[in-house]
């Protein structure tokens, strides 16, 4: 019997002691509760034997369902059907695991185990997600959500341009000068001016690019040139502009600012984004509901600050 009730240590005569002792205890309310509790537990146990041997008994029972599950796991790895030998070794592994699991539980190894905690927390999160499995949204709902989140779907700006290249390799230190004087000669000339080709060097990629985004131009010319390009106005020869490959004189033909597609054009993407947001929202709400039931106690602020300051240095290696 765990715990005990403090007793009066008077010393009556032996026979009297025994009977008064019993009387004392017989009237003790705590004892009554204990006995009633024991009776309840025993009764419950008798009426509810656990099914698949996952109680702390010495029996490990594998059912046909368990075997089926072993077989399925095997097959889901893309293996051919398990042989008798395979099944036998799978069963052995499973029993081995079950024994270790029970021993571990008996020793309380699940308490304070980070991995176990994390896995159980993850299972709760899965459940919470499941409970809020997305329902079919109404079109008005999607449209409203789309209006609020337009920037997410805005497409990149695009530019079409042609350019003349002045090679660093060929011209060395005089490359910028060459590009500058070429631009002066082209002032007022049209895009297709025959003079243009004669002034420049052969470029290792394209002379003409249609509808390219900033990223695509950065890949070829480098980020500095790409950024500068989008600042230019269409319709004249401009430059010289430096790229990672040399200098350029550029004619921008058109600049299409990024537009947002219409609802109809990208409805599947909108729906997908809406579902993602619902999932995040519902997870948050479910968790908030759970959290509301707990009181969280943290060390005082000064202790936390002190700990941050003294981290790695004080403790040495991580």
């Amino acid at each position, binding site marked *: 019997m765990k715990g005990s009730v403090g007793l009066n240590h008077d010393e009556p005569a032996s026979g009297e002691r025994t009977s008064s002792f019993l009387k004392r205890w017989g009237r003790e309310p705590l004892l009554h509760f204990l006995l009633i509790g024991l009776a309840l537990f025993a009764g419950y146990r008798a009426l509810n034997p656990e099914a698949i041997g996952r109680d702390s008994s010495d029996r490990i029972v594998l059912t046909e369902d368990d075997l089926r599950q072993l077989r399925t796991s095997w097959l889901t790895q893309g*293996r051919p059907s398990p042989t008798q030998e395979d099944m036998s070794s799978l069963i052995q592994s499973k029993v081995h695991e079950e024994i270790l699991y029970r021993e571990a539980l008996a020793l309380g190894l699940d308490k304070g185990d980070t991995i176990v905690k994390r896995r159980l927390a993850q299972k709760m999160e899965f459940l919470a997600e499941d409970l809020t499995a997305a329902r079919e949204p109404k079109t008005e709902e999607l449209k409203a959500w789309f209006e609020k989140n337009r920037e997410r779907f805005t497409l990149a700006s695009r530019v079409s341009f042609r350019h003349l290249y002045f090679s660093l390799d060929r011209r060395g230190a005089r490359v910028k000068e060459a590009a500058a004087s070429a631009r002066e000669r082209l002032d007022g000339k049209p895009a297709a001016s025959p003079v243009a080709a004669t002034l420049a060097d052969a470029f*290792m990629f394209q002379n003409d690019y249609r509808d390219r985004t900033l990223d695509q131009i950065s890949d070829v010319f480098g980020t500095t040139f790409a950024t500068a390009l989008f600042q230019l106005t269409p319709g004249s020869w401009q430059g010289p502009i430096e790229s990672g490959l040399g200098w350029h004189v550029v004619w921008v033909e058109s600049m299409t600012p990024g537009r947002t597609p219409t609802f109809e054009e990208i409805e599947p993407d909108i729906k997908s984004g809406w579902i993602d947001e619902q999932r995040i929202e519902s997870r948050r709400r479910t968790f908030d509901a759970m959290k509301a039931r707990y009181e969280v106690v943290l060390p005082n602020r000064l202790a936390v600050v002190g700990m941050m300051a003294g981290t790695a240095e004080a403790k040495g290696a991580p």
Partner: protein
Amino acid sequence: MNSLATYKFLTVTMLKNHPLTELSSPDVLGTYWKRLVNIADKYYRPGKFTTFAAYEWTASPNTANLHRNIFFLDTKKVPDMPFSAIDSDDPRELWKWMDSQRKAGNELLAIPHNSNLSNGLMFPTEVDDKGRPIDKAWAETRMRNEPLAELKQVKGQSETTPGLSPNDEFSNYEVLAWQLLGHTGDQINYGSYIRQAYKDGLALQDTLGVNPYKFGVVSGSDSHSTAVAYRQNNFFGVHGGSYDETPEKRLKGGLFGFNNLWASPAGLSVVWAEENTREAIFAAMQRKETYATSGVRLKVRLFGGWEFGPDVLKQKDWVKTAYAKGVSMGGDLPASTTMAPSFVVWAVKDPDSGNLDRVQIIKGWTKHGQTFEKIYDVAWAGKRKPDPATGKLPPIGHTVNLATATYTNSIGAVELKTVWADPEFDPSLDAFYYARVLEIPTPRWSTIQAVMLSRVPPDGVAATIQERAWTSPIWYTPSEEVRQAAKPGVTVAELTQKGAMALGDDELKQLIVGNTILVRNTVTGRQFEILHGSDGRRLITAVDGKEPELDVMGELSHGRQLQYEIRDGHYVVEVAGTPFEVTVYKMGDKYVAARSNEFGYANYEVEAVNP
């Protein structure tokens, strides 16, 4: 420290093969794997952005890294659970599973990575990681499943080391030799590096009948995080204790014996493909039309053929001509008996990085079980000329300011291209050629972050590096007639058949200890006179009849070849940390010797030289 403890725990269980069955059950693995596949499919935009369903098989027997990254072509028949290292840490089992997947209509390939940490087990030449002899079937299975290998990632490069390639002045680049989880002992280099594997592969073609190391190259990150830096100027650390940490932490400190300074940004894989789709990119990977970079966006092309004249690059559509008249990187030259092959190589700098220093072609070949490598500088920036005495091109110098961690592009070239013919081609020998492109020196991330903290660049790592790209090789295989016509080498099998007897320890000691031995390498024709002391040390007293030159002495002492041992019927010399055994046979009154890494050939004639 939760994530750290978790990481420690996970890696230890992985290496000790204690499966966390909790985490391996179908509903956990299945959930995550399914999620990953769904994410890959969700963000796949053919023509714009390609994703692959993929995972890492993390076999680490005795902490040697044998990891492979497995890529599936598409997700139509992706299995519910991938084959993990818990199922088996034996590459043969992995390949068996992969073959069965392919049979079931699910196309996939495996890319071994971080071979520099494999302790010599990634590219074996005699027995595999479990001590089983490798044979033709093993080689064929390997090539069927592993068309590529990863050459550069955050934990170093796997091309070569100064020990393995003493004549390669650029080999001391991000050499990272560390035992997983801080086990002690040096990493074994033979069998861990790609250039040596390429060479051994050529020799194995001869003895096994199949070359198991005929793979292309790619790069990777292996950052163990969904984000990774591939540039020096935004490097935020890697797994093992320096993620998202401060510059202070990245410059000092580490975990399990790993020094955070050794880590570097991820490399990039590049493929030449018709379009940006799963099918086109996967096909390019399978045919090895790929190259690896150190993280910069270098553009490189390599073609090999028999009909490339020096003017081919003057054509505007030379690429079309090159494809028509030759093979691209990753391909095989068709056999020819008359002329030397020529190679077209073209490189353009990364527009946001340093200019180019040079383009090199690295050739490897084999003869009678011996393998050789030579590096040719084929195109370079500026007006430098190769040194007439050494044949080497002078370095380009540098523009790096260590106080500010900046550089300027006032040296180097934007574009380098040339047509190069092999000046020392022997049509009877198997060979490979790959291109390596080097940028001018630029500051390493450790220098940049030291400057952020107003410090000098840290010791123990280079302050500047030359970013680079490596292409998949082009292979040359002689035709059967040419092979047969060539004079065969002497093999151990032949010797023993003719009644030659291997010398035991006592006979070896009598022949060698306290004596000067003349060793003639019948493949190269070189002769060495080697004096052997009775204290286990030896000294090369002459090479080809003359005093050995400094570079030969350097080469030999670099590999610590100044010590020898006689045991178990072998004369043992250590080269770059790996012991090689020489067996000496007596044939009549002559001595012929075979070295253990020469694939059964006996290439040495040995004579005692009496003073």
